């Protein structure tokens, strides 16, 4: 009779922390790591809420006057003058030219209709953290921008990590010609200047949008991960536990992904979070340069792009909102990555 029959499995199953559990415990001891994890979690929650339409769903609504200042600064004194000038411009031009406008009646009708539509929610003179050129709430834009930027960062990083891991695993595990092929591919990708490569891919995809940015970043960003994963696989494939797996008859794919992968996954995880940060920054740069997300989407990059002209006019709030949101996330994410690396690599202890 076997022991399993005598003892129920639950009785045998004493609490036994796996390596992941131990890593989590190490992470929990790291105060900075936990705080940054909380910040990252908050951002993720923000992203999900915004994605689900619970937050900032109406970010594109022109809620305030143009360049409405933040609420704590009070309304802009210059604003009514702008409005008056606008009204004056609306007057028919008959007096100057002496010719009656043939469309005057139609236009008046349209103007009345438009005025009737926008009159009830007359534009606010101040917004919580100011408004942009079209009077859109900067805070809502920042929240929506968080969604876009984080989505781009996370999905692109996932894509890059998957590519890098699969290529690296093949190259490192099989070696020989497979390795040569992937190294050749790697060299091609890394030999082209980064921005040029990005522009080339953007030109090939030939459309602007979030998906394009994700593809651009994902397809160009796998190279570093590839090198690391390849090196890890080369190191692990000669380890005795992999030989032992071979000895019990495990197939190549099984050895590669069931046996070795969990042992290099901490490297991959750290790379993933590093690349999220990297890609968030890259998206900002791309959008700033105008190769980023489309005009109908807002991201931190597109906000910063708008901010460069606004800053000359002294309208700083859009810049601050986008920069602060990004700085906090990037810092928290980087600190979290650091803590993660410490927790996952007990050799440092």
């Amino acid at each position, binding site marked *: 009779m*076997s*022991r*399993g*029959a005598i*003892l129920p499995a639950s009785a*045998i*199953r*004493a609490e*036994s*922390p*796996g*390596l992941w559990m131990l890593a989590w415990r190490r992470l929990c*001891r790291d105060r900075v790591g936990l705080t940054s994890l909380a910040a990252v979690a908050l951002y993720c929650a923000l992203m999900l809420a915004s994605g689900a339409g619970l937050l900032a769903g109406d970010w594109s609504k022109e809620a305030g006057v143009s360049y409405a200042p933040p609420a704590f600064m009070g309304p802009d004194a210059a604003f009514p003058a702008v409005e008056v000038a606008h009204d004056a411009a609306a007057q028919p031009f008959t007096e100057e030219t002496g010719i009656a406008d043939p469309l005057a009646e139609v236009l008046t009708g349209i103007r009345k209709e438009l005025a009737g539509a926008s009159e009830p929610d007359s534009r606010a003179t101040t917004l919580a953290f100011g408004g942009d050129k079209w009077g859109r709430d900067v805070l809502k834009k920042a929240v929506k921008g968080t969604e876009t930027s984080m989505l781009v960062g996370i999905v692109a990083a996932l894509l890059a990590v998957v590519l890098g891991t699969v290529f690296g695993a093949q190259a490192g595990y099989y070696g020989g010609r497979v390795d040569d092929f992937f190294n050749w591919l790697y060299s091609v990708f890394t030999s082209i200047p980064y921005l040029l490569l990005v522009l080339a891919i953007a030109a090939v995809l030939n459309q602007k949008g979030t998906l394009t940015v994700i593809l651009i970043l994902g397809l160009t960003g796998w190279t570093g991960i590839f090198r690391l994963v390849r090196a890890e696989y080369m190191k692990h494939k000669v*380890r*005795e*536990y992999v*030989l*032992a*797996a*071979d*000895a*019990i*008859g*495990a197939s190549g794919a*099984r050895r590669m992904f069931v*046996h070795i992968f*969990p*042992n290099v996954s901490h490297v991959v995880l750290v790379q993933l979070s590093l690349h999220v940060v990297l890609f968030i920054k890259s998206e900002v740069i791309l959008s700033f340069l105008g190769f980023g997300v489309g005009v109908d989407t807002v991201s931190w990059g597109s906000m910063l792009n708008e901010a460069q002209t606004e800053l000359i006019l002294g309208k700083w709030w859009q810049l601050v909102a986008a920069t602060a949101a990004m700085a906090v996330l990037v810092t928290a994410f980087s600190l979290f990555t650091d803590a993660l690396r410490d927790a996952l690599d007990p050799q440092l202890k």
Partner: protein
Amino acid sequence: MKPYEDTAPLLCLRDLEVSFRIDAATTLRAVKGASFDIPSDSTVALVGESGSGKSVTALAILGLLPRENATVGAGSRIVYRGRNLLGMAPRELRALRGAGISMIFQEPMSSLNPVFTAGFQIAELLKQHLGLSARQARARVLELLREVGITEPEARIDAYPFQLSGGQQQRVMIAMAIACEPKLLIADEPTTALDVTVQQQILELIAGLQRKMRMSVLFITHDLDVVGEIADSVVVMRDGEVREQGATRQIFEAPRDGYTQALLACRPTLARRPGRLPVIDDFMKQPPVDLSRIPERRRGLHGDEEIVLEARHLAKSFYSREGLFGRKEFRAVKDVSFKLARGRTLGLVGESGSGKTTVGLTLMRLLDASCGEVLFDGRDLMTMPPREAMAYKRRIQIVFQNPYSSLNPRFTAGQILMEPMQIHSIGGGEEERRDAVYELLEKVGLPATSFYRYPHEFSGGQRQRIAIARCLTMQPDVLICDEPVSALDVSIQAQLLNLLQDLQDEYGMSYVFISHDLAVVRHMADQVMVMKDGEIVEIAGSDEIYSNPRHPYTRQLLSSMPRGWRPGAG
């Protein structure tokens, strides 16, 4: 009672307490009140298994304990020539290290800086501690290299560590340690990483230097046999406590402590072959077992045994690139032929680089043979297509040397043991396999709770038991044991050798037992092959080869085995 007659010992250790803070809640007491003396001009052996606190003691003497988490007890004293080292300023201590007390480490390969030449590293020490000029230092380095027995020191002085063999590297380390003529030399397992023949030379070198330079040596080792010839007195430690200390003769001839007796008895010897090796527990209980009552096991072949596996002219070459298109052949195994009888053990002995592990891996098809055949059930395993070979794969299994790396750290013991059965569809279903695993765990002496535990929660010996159980899941006919006990402590070795023997008796498996340790092979094997540089130099019955070695290399191996204590020699 004072253990030594010497009135003014060079170093007195009194009530040494060292503890390590693991985390906020746990502290590990590594050394618990150890006291012993090192008299001047003598060799003291500090013997203990892993975790006994012997290396920590050495580090405490040198003041090299990690500052972050190590604490030395308030009552501890380490008095060196009348001064307490524990109260010394770091600057003074640094001056003392190297000049007064120096140390040799276990791994010469990792203790030397690979990017500097051997001569440079020794000279640096001389310039720093003795203030010699570059020219003087070089002359002294040559002198030192000659002293530690390096042939052609003029050529070797500018060699990088990788250009030197393991033995030569350890000689360089010794040269560095004695460069400033220290009063006390601490040698922490200086020969453990080396081959037996080299080990013997290094031991002789250390003993010779000790006499010549009239210094004291603290020789740390896990192997009592090693120190029998060179130590004046022995200190035995276990779990941070000193179990016994005394003159070497007394320790070897009349050990008082049960643990010392166990250490001496559980190591296989060339003289006897007990049916079961005694283990520590046999000595710790009262009354201890009587060694002479354990029956001897008979080994050897009659010649009419059934042959399970036959290797014919097996060879394996590795190639390295040379030049643009050329490649250089390295013949790791050249023309190896042998027969393995059912239910018997074939020992395979050789030093590192002899190709014995390559033979094991090639038999398993973990490496492809360059030529030759391996007949199993009348079929040649080497030329079989991979799909067909799968069925045979489970019938030949291997236990690797290092239990710390042969188990996947991300799998539980249960997963590790279930996997081979899943791959080969052994057993009716998951339930049945699970029951089989519980049964095997019990068989190899592990509790059922091990099923859900991860490898890092087991000790080295327990991990090796899991590795053995993994092989047993496939009920193999042949088990290749590649140095299965070399990475383990002496007392754990005995337990595992007993386990392997019990399993062979029960399942009738044939073993290919690969080891560099002649005593272990004699204990386990019916037939012994001696390998050197990829070739089998001698193959004979186990009793015959030890009593009547024919090949000079076999004789050399046997003569360089540590002999332990020989009455009349000391």
